[in-house]
Structures are given as C-alpha cells and as structure tokens.
C-alpha cells in the first residue's frame, strides 16, 4: 500500500523499551548475519516477495526500534505476514550449525508473537484479529463458522451418538475448527480410540485452547482461556490430555508450561503419535483397503516446530491399498497451507495462494489425495483441491476408513 508514513514516536515508549531490552541480543544475532538464508523457505515470502516480511526484517526492526528509527506503529502490520510455521528457524545457519554449541536458537516465531503482543499492549490492533478475539472471548470458542455463531452449548455436538463420558484420567481436547467445522475428524479419532480400547472422556466445558489469541498477540486472553481449561481438566480428574490438532499441541506443550510453570503436570499426547503406537502394538489393525494415490502434507507445527514427521508416515505406510508418494520432510520445510497464526483472518488472499501452490505441488506427483494431519490446513487446502481435483483428507479419517469404522 502506498500509504505515506514516516516513523513516529507514538505508542507507549516504556513498553517498547522493555521489549527491546528483552529482544535486542537475539535481534543482533540475526542482524549481524543478515544473510537471508531463511528467505526462500518462508511460505508467505514466497508469495509476497516483500523483504519486509522476512525474519531478517523481523529482527532488524528491533534494532531499528532500539535506534529510534521505527516504532511499533511502523512495523506491526508487517508481522501479520507470518504463519509461525518455523521453517526459517530450521533454515537459519545460526541454529543449524552452531546452535547446540552455544545453546542458541533463532526464535523468529517467539519474536513474531512478542511483537504482536507489544502491538496489542500498545493499542495497535489488526481489525480482523481484534474482532476474532472479541468473538472468541464472548463465545469461548473461535468463530470458525462465519455467520453461524459457535457456542459452548454446541461444542460437543460433534460427539453425538458416540457415547463419550465426561471426564476421567484421559481427556480428548477437540480443537474449535474440528468441533464446529470438520467434525469428521474428531469423530474419526473417537472411533479409532474406542476401537483400540483407549478409555477417554471429554471436558465439562471446553474453551478454545487460547493458542490463536497468543499467536495474534492477545496474551491476557490466551492466559485466561488456559486457566479455564486447566481448571476444567483438574476438576474432572484428568492427568493425560489427548490432542488431535498440532496448534493445540503447541499451546499445551509450549504456552501452558510457560503460564503455569512447575504446577503444570499433565501428560500431553498427540493423537497421531498415539495411533502410530497402537498400530505398532497391534491394538489397532487396518485391513480395509483404501484405494487412493496420496501424498502427505507435513503439518508445519508437527514437522517444523516439533520434529514430528515419522509417525504420520508410519501410519500411511500401514494403510492397505494406499499408494503413498512421499516428499521428504526437509523439502517440506518450504511448504505450508498458509492457515496458521491468523494469516487467514487478516490476509485470506495469501492463505489461498499458499494453499493453491501446496496443492499444485501435490498435483504434480499425480496423486488424487492430499493427506494432512492439521485440521486448520484442511479447509484452505480443500478449497484449492476442489479446482485442482485433489481431495484433501485428514490422516485420522483415512485410518478410520482403513479400520472399517463408521463415522
């Protein structure tokens, strides 16, 4: 946009000062390199080609803020352009080669979250995010259904007829997108776990995990939601939380421990890893052939943020009848659906284009199916899949089919 602005000194100077003090060393580590090895791996940058949307700029801005050249008002909008997929951190030589030795890691994702939080605290809001978080705050779940309001009353509708109890030692946390939009996913998960004899219940009152709020900078709200969910887990006696969405998995393994410290003593289990284990142990068998030619979309938060790329492949290889054309997980560092970290709310055009390119890559492998393990990726990927004749399914939906389970 050709808006004409010159750096201003607005915002809360003290907040910025505190932020800069915390981030300046990390920022200088990148600034001193400035080589941009991370640029071409970034899914957003691949589309916008705008240097202001790179980790290099995200770090340099901190230095420029320290020097008094830029303010939070100047930079806040640029930080919208990040899906927090983590690719750039992996590609950064400072992490790759010397990170272990110096116990250093380039933490671009945390930096993006911190700048977004600074923006919110300084009263610089992105209109779409502000509205999204207000609605989430009101309804306790994300407004994933556009016009149709979501509410606590309907948060467990997806489980109708499955006979799931409330509470117990093991609780399944169902992501908002899964609970209200792609209900085939939680149903598949529930059926699979039941078939394998895993006992689990639901929460009494499941609020959004708070992760999206944290990702968009609404940290207080994120914490309030986390407090509610943890209280609910404790109230029903839960010790082990099953998680079916990678975004929630990040919240529960990164945000929550940060909020609650040592008091946070829950075992967080990713359903994909659990299912791989159940298959290995023979507690689940897949015998119904699935006649598809498929490739796997590495969910960014699993592959790039958590290093989880084996389990989904192990499961896919166990599905009878399936022709699996794999693309290795390192090549997929530069792949993304574009759905993460609120990009789809503020820049749906970019999400759509990132998804289009992802589906196009799948299409070139001559597959009919793109399998994902991230429910948030599945909506934009499906939209693009329709026009390119590639069906997008969740890994657990395939497993349920191969296990002969009715959804």
């Amino acid at each position, binding site marked *: 946009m050709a808006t004409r602005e010159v750096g201003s000194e607005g915002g809360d100077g003290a907040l910025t000062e505190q932020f800069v003090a915390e981030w300046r060393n990390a920022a200088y*580590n990148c600034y001193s390199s400035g080589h941009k090895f991370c640029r071409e791996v970034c899914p957003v940058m691949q589309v916008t080609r*705008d240097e202001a949307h790179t980790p290099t700029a995200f770090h340099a801005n901190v230095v420029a803020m320290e020097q008094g050249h830029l303010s939070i008002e100047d930079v806040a909008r640029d930080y919208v352009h990040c899906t927090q997929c983590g690719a750039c951190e992996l590609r950064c030589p400072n992490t790759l080669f010397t990170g272990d030795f110096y116990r250093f890691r380039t933490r671009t994702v945390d930096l993006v979250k911190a700048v977004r939080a600074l923006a919110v605290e300084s009263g610089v809001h992105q209109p779409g995010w502000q509205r999204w978080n207000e609605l989430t705050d009101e309804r306790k779940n994300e407004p994933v259904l556009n016009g149709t309001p979501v509410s606590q009353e309907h948060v467990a509708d997806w489980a109708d007829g499955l006979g799931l109890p409330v509470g117990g030692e093991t609780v399944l946390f169902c992501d908002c997108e899964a609970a209200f939009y792609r209900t085939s996913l939680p149903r598949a998960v529930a059926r699979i776990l039941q078939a394998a004899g895993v006992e689990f219940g639901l929460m009494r009152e499941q609020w959004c995990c708070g992760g999206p709020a944290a990702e968009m900078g609404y940290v207080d709200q994120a914490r309030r939601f986390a407090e509610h969910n943890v209280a609910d887990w404790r109230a029903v006696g839960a010790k082990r939380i099953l998680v079916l969405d990678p975004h929630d998995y990040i919240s529960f393994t990164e945000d929550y421990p940060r909020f609650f410290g040592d008091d946070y003593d829950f075992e967080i289990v990713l359903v994909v890893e659990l299912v791989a284990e159940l298959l290995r142990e023979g507690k689940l068998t897949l015998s119904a052939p699935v006649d598809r030619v498929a490739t796997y979309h590495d969910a960014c938060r699993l592959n790039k943020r958590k290093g989880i790329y084996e389990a989904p492949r192990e499961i896919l290889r166990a599905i009878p009848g399936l022709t699996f054309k794999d693309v290795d997980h390192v090549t997929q560092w530069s792949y993304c659906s574009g759905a993460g970290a609120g990009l789809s709310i503020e820049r749906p055009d970019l999400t759509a284009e990132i998804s289009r390119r992802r589906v196009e890559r799948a299409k070139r492998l001559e597959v009919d199916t793109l399998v994902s393990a991230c429910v948030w990726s599945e909506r934009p990927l499906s939209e693009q899949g329709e026009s390119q004749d590639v069906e997008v399914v969740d890994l657990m939906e395939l497993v349920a089919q191969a296990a002969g389970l009715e959804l």
Partner: protein
Amino acid sequence: MPTVTLSDALLDELVQICGEEHVFAGAAARFNRARVPSPFPVHRWDEFVPDAVVLPTSAEQISEVVKLANRERVPVVPRAGGTGLTDGAVPLRHGIMVDVKLMNRILELDLEDRTVTVQPGINMLKLSEELKPHGFIYPDNPASYPCSLVGGRIGTSGWSLIGGRYGHTRDLVISFELVLPTGEIVRVGDGGGPKVRKSSSGYQLKHLFMGHQGTLGIVTEATLELVKRPEAEFSAFYAYPSYLDAWRATGDFARSGAATLAGVVLFDEWKLAYLRRDDEAYIPQPESVKAVVALALYGNDDEVRASAKRMLRLGKASGGTYLGDEISQGDWASRHDRYATPLHGRTRDGQVVPMSWHCEDASILYSQLPAVREKWHAIAAGLRERFDMFDDWGMFAYTNGAFKPWGDYLTEIDIGIWEMQWDDESWAAWVDAKREIARVALEHGGSISACHGSCREGEVDLVPEELGGGFEVMKAVKRALDPNNVMNPGKYLLDRAYEEDAP
C-alpha cells in the same frame, strides 16, 4: 528521521505504473531495504534509506519508472536478493528502490537447445528445484546460493564455488534483457539470437552490462545455461602441518589438468582456529594441523573416477593427511552455510559477542598468496589492537578462473565486527583498513575484487588506480548511457564522470 522527499504526485505516478500494492513508502519498508549483509554503520542507518520502494512485475513497468526518474532527476537503485557484499544495493542518495523480487518466474525451459529463461528475481536454489525433474542444474553456485537472485548475480558478475568446472555467472548467463538508464529496453548477449553462446558480431556488450552494480541498468530477463546434472561428485580434504605445504599442494591440485576439477580451497591456520571455536562446525583436528586443502570434482562417473585417483595420488605425494569421508560429505555439503557465524565473535579476552562478517574477495596470483596473507593478517591485527570489536576470522583461497583454475585465487580474509560498538572513529579506522587491504592486493598484481565488486567505502578509492585508463572509459560509458546520473548514483566514484572536465 529522514523525511520522504518524493512528492505526492510522483508517488501517485509510481502507483499508476506499478499498482497500489507494489509501491511502498512506509518507514519499515524503506529501512529494511537500506542495508546488505556487509558491515553497515548502524549509527548512520538513516543516511541510506530509500524514499520509496517499488516491486515491479514487468520490464515495461521498470522502463516507465526509470523514465520517470530521469524526468524528475531522482536516483533509482536496483535490488535483487540484497545479499551483495559491496553495498551495491544500498541507496547512497535515497531515491526509488526497484526491488525485482516479485519478478521470479521461469519463462521458458528449452531442453533441446538447453537454456532456461527466467526473470531476475528468481533464486538459484529454487530454480534448481524446478530443473531437477528434467535432469538439469543451473550451476551458478555461490555460497549465497539459497539467498542471492539471478538479477544480483548479473549485477555483480558473481563467482561460483564450482566455477572451475562449470564457469561463473558470466559464463552461465547467455543473454539478458535490460532497461537502460534512460528507460529503453534492450537485449545483450553473446551475440545474435538470445540463445547463441559465441558470436563475433559487433561489440561484446554482455560483459559491459555485468558487474556494474546497477549503475548501467536493470536486468529484467535472462537466458541461462542448462547443464546436465553431474552423475558423480568427489570431494576430499587434506591436512598439512604448515601453510606453505598446503599452498604447494593447492597448486598441484589446481594444475593437475583434470577437467572435472570444480574447485580447490585452501584454509589457513586462522580459519581453522575460527572453525575450531565450535567443535560441531568442524570435525576436530589435532593441533598439529595448521592448514587444510579441500577439492571437489564433478562430472560423468567414468571421468570422476579417473580424476579422483589422480587427485588421491597428488594428495599423497604432497604429504597431506587425508581427512576421511565424513568431513568430505559433511563439511563440503554444508559449505553454503558456514560463512557468517555471528556467535563465533570474540573480544580480546575471549568473551562471546555477536559479530557481523566482512568478507574480502580479492583476486590474488598464486605466487603471491603467502605474502598477501601475512600483510592482511597484520592489518586485521592492527584493527583489533585499537578497537576490541574486530576479530580475525582467518583466510580462504579458492581457485578463481573458470575452466583454468590455476593462475589466480579468490582470496578471502574474513573479519568479524561487533557492530553494536560502531562510532565514527571505529568506522573511519575500518574504512582505512579496507583501503589498505585493497592496496596490498594491487601491490601484488591482483584485483580488489573477484566477485563482490569494489565499491565500498575505502577500497573504492583505489579503483581508478586498478583500472588505469580503463576507468576513464568507464566514466565515458556511464555519462553516455546515463546522462542524468540516475542509475544507482554515488557508486564506483562515477560522479566524477559528470564533473566539468570529465571526458
């Protein structure tokens, strides 16, 4: 705070040419295009900020922008990857930055005549991903392979790590289209059709329009060489007890005559010490190892096998210790990423501080390497003694010539700089040191730069001396092609072309 000097009317015109979403005048967009990875006077950042940034999508748009700049006498600065190490893409006079990153499409893949035609904003790693299924590579392979772009490669006339075998940028770019400083769109190349590799028709303009650091126009399209993906690759590392032993061995390898030889690299003692700062980055060697030589071969399987045997024989005869397969595969494979490790910065008392990377890249004759090395380290030591913010990160020498990699070497001294400490005094000392480093290169019959270009503060003062009468020709060409001095003004002392008594 630098104020935007472009008028609203001019910005409106830019918007009309490039589209609203491709014109940026916000502070963050401008500040983030002020610098490149080479040492930068952080304390004077605002002196180098463009007034506006455009991301054009076609040659026609760039042509219109350049015409507008001529009409209004506003500087235009081309920028591709922004990884150049001689400040080429740093706007010295503000103005309009033409960032070509959005022009990153592959326009034609010709498997028959073996060319690929691309836009200037494409990155080589990304290009190679597309070529892979067809069994080809585009072998312009700088250490900045994952981040520099074709337009910048042409703007700098870059050097490739495997150039001994496949050639450097100038050998691999067959022809290109560019917008001249007055806005006309022309195509230059090796001759005739855009895919012809050798011609004697007329002036050989391709070289003139490469390596000019954006002072003679903006490349908008390039036709590149396609090379068959090599069947085999061989690399080997040898350790030596002294620099001179390693230097002799380097000469032996480079003069072996093997056509598969892609490059030989000589690491000196200081470089090993630098790499040893982190035992993960370099497979540890005993203290007795004072220098290392690495070499790489590429080609058809049968050729590589035969020449590998020859190299192993030479290595043995040179008294080198073969360092094993692990380092060959590991270190050589990750060679792109080992350059600037800010965490390896050390103050005099050993404190770890984040340092930026200065990389010298002179061309030095083989015979002169030992002497130049001593002088350069002495200059670095002098800096470190005065300011506890400079650190000597050691030297590499790489075979330089394409297809004849024996005469001169791209010679690199890497200097770490703790940029948080800059002030006017240390900056001035740094500029002096750079000039001294360049002077040593010239005194020994070399060139200030093998690939980055030589237009940074300090070294640039010696360019007229290096080029002699050639610099007068450069000025005449510049004034003829860019009568209003709008294309990347301030670079290469070319303002002198516009002084009263200029040619």
